[in-house]
Structures are given as structure tokens and as C-alpha cells.
């Protein structure tokens, strides 16, 4: 359930933003999420931005993935 996809905010208006997903753009409502800024990654679901994506957390996660060892050592 709940297909949602990260997109980069490229434009902001009062109640909406435009997000860029690999070059495709779509307007999304910002009425479910406070403080959206241009340059943010937001998660888009059913035409609404439902959460900001944290780039630092993403980098940390990737580093963690890359550094995974065997199951016993996890």
C-alpha cells in the first residue's frame, strides 16, 4: 500500500509545491506538511507531500548498508 516517491522541491506556492522526480515534474499539495522549502526532498503520495526526506539520514543509511558484515555480527 501507499506508493510514495521522493522528489526534489523546485518551486513553492502558497499551498503547493512542484517536485522533480528524475526530471518529471508534478505539483503536490503542501497542506499536510509544514515548512517545505525549495531544495528539500519530500515524499510524495497521492498528490501530497507527506514528509520531508532527510539527506543526512540517507547518507548515513547508505554508509551503514555498505559496511554491513555477516548476520551474527549485525
Amino acid at each position: 500500500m501507499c506508493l510514495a516517491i521522493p522528489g526534489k522541491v523546485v518551486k513553492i506556492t502558497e499551498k503547493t509545491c512542484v517536485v522533480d522526480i528524475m526530471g518529471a515534474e508534478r505539483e503536490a499539495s503542501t497542506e499536510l506538511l509544514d515548512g517545505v522549502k525549495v531544495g528539500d526532498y519530500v515524499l510524495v503520495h497521492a498528490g501530497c507531500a507527506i514528509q520531508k526526506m532527510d539527506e543526512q539520514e540517507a547518507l548515513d543509511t547508505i554508509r551503514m548498508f555498505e559496511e554491513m558484515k555477516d548476520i551474527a555480527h549485525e
Partner: protein
Amino acid sequence: MKDIITLAHGSGGKLTHELVREIFNKHFANDTLLQGNDATCFDVPQGKIAFTTDSFVISPVFFKGGNIGKLSVCGTVNDLAACGAHPMYLSCGFIIEEGFPLADLERIAASMGETARECGVKIVAGDTKVVQKGAADKVFINTSGIGVVPAGINISGSNAKPGDKVIITGYIGDHGCSILLEREGLDISSDIQSDCAPLSGMMGEVLAAASDVHVLRDPTRGGLGTTLNEIAIQSNVGIRIFEEKIPVRNEVRGVCELLGMDPLYMANEGKMIIIAPEASVNTILEVLKKQRYGVDSCVIGEVIDTPAKRVVMKTVTGGSRIVDMLTGDQLPRIC
């Protein structure tokens, strides 16, 4: 002549003749077309005849990268090319909705003429029907085509052999994706444009360099996934493709991710699947990469023994999964 199509243009009377003369004959002009009889007669060179038909019902009629007219020529020319044939003659049947702008019809006819000239094919037979407002969606075009298969060429969807390589002549999904976005309602904007192109010239070069090609097929409706399945079934083989080798533009990927769709099932209108023995692959790629419509060609997979009649894809995890035929149209999904 008024500026819109009325039922009178389809009545078979004077306005029909005027329309044919001032739009179709003008843009399709060639010596064979103008016989003015119920059928057109001509000689064809020796060889097997290839014959195909397709109707084009695309909405919108004009789209980024082409229009229904260009598409209707490319579609049929490409089907002939996909049998190894040299396309020679086309027919075209128009079904036009009352009220359609004549200027748009002329743009469409001009595109058809231009595309036909590009691939050296003659539009020699035609038909025009006009239906009541609301009885058709703007304009539908059927084209049927006749080509000649040179001696020594034997291409069929049933010829794929284990060990053969699978080539695609460029990025997939552009056409399907661009049309999806041009339809109302999704409000997604992108630079994606239809790949609509006539491939007969390029395929002629390929076959001249490598006459041992086993299968050609243009992955139109149903996309790469469905077309490969057709081949696997027809040839009673398996086909393995590699997710990371399949060329998909970022914008197409973006749209697909957003809507929960799969580029493997998005239509292409200027791509060819080529299945050929491994020994010929380099020759073929060399020819393709020199061609305007083939610069992004690459090997995406191989023909295997088992599972027969199935297409499997090796994914980024190293695992495999089935690539089935499309079931019904892909619908935007959300949950």
C-alpha cells in the same frame, strides 16, 4: 472548402473528391497514387510479399515527437521492416469526426507524406470516412503496407535460438510515457517525447550487413515485456534480460515510479528488438550506432533454453523474476 470537416466530406460526392485532391493527393503525391480507380495496380519485384495492417487511434492526435499521421506511416513501415521486408506501398484509411479542423488534417497528411518520402514508400490507395460528431475521437487512421522480402532473408518471431543475443535499438518507454502525460488529468510535465520513427532504412542496412538475423520485432503496444513474451512463445525458448542493461531515460523512470508503472510495458514507436546469433552482434551494433535511430542500441539479454516460453529478468539483487505479458492496460496506481 470550409475550415472544418463536415459529413459532406465523407459522402462520396464532390467535397470528398475535393478533399482527396487538395489534401491527400497533394501531400502523398506519387505516380502510382493518381490512377483514380477502385484499386491501384502496380508491379512488384520478385520475392515474397509482406503485408500488414494497423489502425491508429492515438489521443492526443498531436504529441511531442510526432502526430497520428507520422505514427501511422512509421507503425506499418516498421512492421514490414520487422519481417525483413523492404516497404514499398501503403494504403491509408481515414475515419474523421465531423468538426475536425481541416488545417489539422492537412498537418497530419503532410507528416504522412514526409515520413513516407523519408522511407521511400508510396501511399497509393486511400479511403476517407466522416462520422457524426461524437461517433469517433477526432481522427483514426488505418495504414496497410506491402513490402518485398529480399531473397535469403528469413526472419520470424519463431526463429530465436538459445545462445542468440537480444538487442534493443535505444531507450524504451518514451512513446508510451509521453502519450500518458499528454492525456489530461495527471498534471505531470516532462521533456519526454515520443520516439516515433521509421526504421526501415536502418533495418535494411542491418540486414545488408548481417543477413543471419533471426528475429526482428518492434515493441509497440504492450512494450518490450509483452513483445519478448510473444517471441519466447513463438520460438518455444526462454529469454533472459538484465535489468541494469535496459536503457530507460530518467524522466521515464521518474514518471513510472510516481504512477506505479513499469517501463517494460510502455509502448515504443521507434525501436526494434533484434535477436541474432552472438557472432553477428558486433557487426549489427556497429551498423546501428551509425544510424540516427540506432545510436543508443545495446545488448539487453539472451535467448535461453529454459524456462521455455518465458521471459525472466535478472535484477540488481542478482535474483531473477518473471516478466509476464501485460494484462490489461497499466493504470496509475497509488496504493
